[in-house]
């Protein structure tokens, strides 16, 4: 277990290092970073002086190491537009994104896990077909389009829910449903197949054979055992949730990290983009690490290879 933990930690470090390289390259792939940062009316002299000052004339690896050193201390430079440290801007927006993502996961799990369970218990019957057809449709639908349709129906037509912004619970409903639907279909399908697998196991047959009611068999034996994979699936879908948050926040003008990043890209505010990509990636890697370790701890059958 300890060796496994160590290996996973080292692996996460690799990943963070690799990502830092990517983030570093964002600015350098543009061609000449000095031209990106300075206003278009800058003279050739000013550009040369700026290059010297920022160290753009140094070899790329020196610049990368310097970038890495700063990034590890949380220094991504100041936002071109607002002048405040880029990391501060990102962290300020974090709570809104966490709130949205949590609500979305809760919604997706509450909808998809029961649907998958019911489908498995009623395999090849009407309820199974209906929920799996729904899941297939859900998987084929761009979730952001569903968001637009919900917006059109509930906010514009019926005037029941606010169109955009953050604040009350009512503001949260549409964005959470939209973001949740990015992953609900997948979770439902996987829950169904996990549940079917568990229902075919020997211990379920034993439980039935000793005369337990169907409810007890399902609730006490099958459900619990199909939960571990389902939890993993939810954790694996976190990447999709984070990505979907970018789009969902844009649709509903939700003041989170994702929208800030889309805005920063169109305004070419590179420090904010770099800080954002780095922070989200590190959060994602950290969550994955915790889930993997927890998973190995919870399920003793997992080999630590």
């Amino acid at each position: 277990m300890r060796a496994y933990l160590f290996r996973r930690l080292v692996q996460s470090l690799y990943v963070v290092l690799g990502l830092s390289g990517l983030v570093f390259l964002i600015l350098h792939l543009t061609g000449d970073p000095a031209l990106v940062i300075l206003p278009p009316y800058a003279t050739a002299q000013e550009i040369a002086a700026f290059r010297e000052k920022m160290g753009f004339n140094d070899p790329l690896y020196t610049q990368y190491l310097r970038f890495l050193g700063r990034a590890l201390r949380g220094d991504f430079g100041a936002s071109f537009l607002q002048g405040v440290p880029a990391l501060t801007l990102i962290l300020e927006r974090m709570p809104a994104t966490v709130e949205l993502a949590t609500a979305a996961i809760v919604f997706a799990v509450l909808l998809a896990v029961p649907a998958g369970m019911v489908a498995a218990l009623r395999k090849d019957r009407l309820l199974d077909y209906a929920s799996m057809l729904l899941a297939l449709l859900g998987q084929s639908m761009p979730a952001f389009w569903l968001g637009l349709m919900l917006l059109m129906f509930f906010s514009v037509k019926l005037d029941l829910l606010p169109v955009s912004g953050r604040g009350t619970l009512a503001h949260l409903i549409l964005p959470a449903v939209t973001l949740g639907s990015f992953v609900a279909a997948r979770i439902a399908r996987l829950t169904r197949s996990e549940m079917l697998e568990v229902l075919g196991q020997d211990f379920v047959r034993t439980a039935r054979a000793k005369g337990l009611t169907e409810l007890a068999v399902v609730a006490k034996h099958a459900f619990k055992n199909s939960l571990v994979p389902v939890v993993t699936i939810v954790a694996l879908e976190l990447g999709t949730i984070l990505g979907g948050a970018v789009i969902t926040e844009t649709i509903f003008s939700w003041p989170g990290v994702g929208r800030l990043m889309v805005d920063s890209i169109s305004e070419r505010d590179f420090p904010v983009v770099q800080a954002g990509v780095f922070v989200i990636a590190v959060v994602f890697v950290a969550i994955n690490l915790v889930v993997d370790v927890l998973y190995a701890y919870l399920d003793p059958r997992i080999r630590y290879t």
Partner: protein
Amino acid sequence: MRSRHGKLVVGIVLVSFVVFFGLFADLVSPHDPVRQNLGAKLMPPGSYERGFGWHLLGTDHFGRDILSRLIHGARVSLFITATAVVISGVLGTLVGLVSGFRGGRVDDLLMRITEVQLACPFILLALAVAAALRPSLRNTVIVLAVSGWVVYAKVVRSRVLSLRDSEFIVAARALGASGVRLVARHVLPSMLSTCIVLATVEAARMIILESALTFLGLGVQPPQASWGGMLRDGKLYISAAWWYTTFPGLAIMLTVLGINVVGDSLRDLLDPRLKV
């Protein structure tokens, strides 16, 4: 068995329908997709524009025919998706082959790279590339291709590892087959079906991703007609013109549904153990 084939047929019909419109957009499109008439803007579906013709699915905020733009948008979406699927498929398969056969350090390095990429939510990668290279049709293809190769690399590598010591490969080796011949004649054909299934799943994913990127303003740029772009513009008129956002989304959904159904039934037929 019969219902599986039924499913496959439904999927193929749906996909060919979209492909047909995409390929022959210029012939089947009722109007010019960029022809504007501000006098005829935001007309509802089934409107008749005097001196011009019918707008079956209505018009947009420039008075352009939505059906014609949908048909031309199909061409853009399909072109991007097909190109990205081919590039990422070939690249990923190559990496998987090299990684699996070479082993050792090369394998280690390549697998580290795939891990880094898998640990990074796709949209971040796309945002980074879009920020650096500026959005365009070409860069959209690059982003999608880069996002897709990992899946093939992983699957192909694990296949190679399990095939490497199988009897027919050992036999071919013993008969003196060269490395290239071995791969081309024996290894690749035996994993072709897996790759086809993967490619269908990827194609469905990429159509949605492309429209999402374009919706965010990071993909195909106007005035080129594209489904994601129509959704982006349509959002501004969501209270005035329901048809503007409804139809492009339906087009995406039907296309992806078709591909998903084909992918599902192909997997059941060709490679039931594959989990994607």
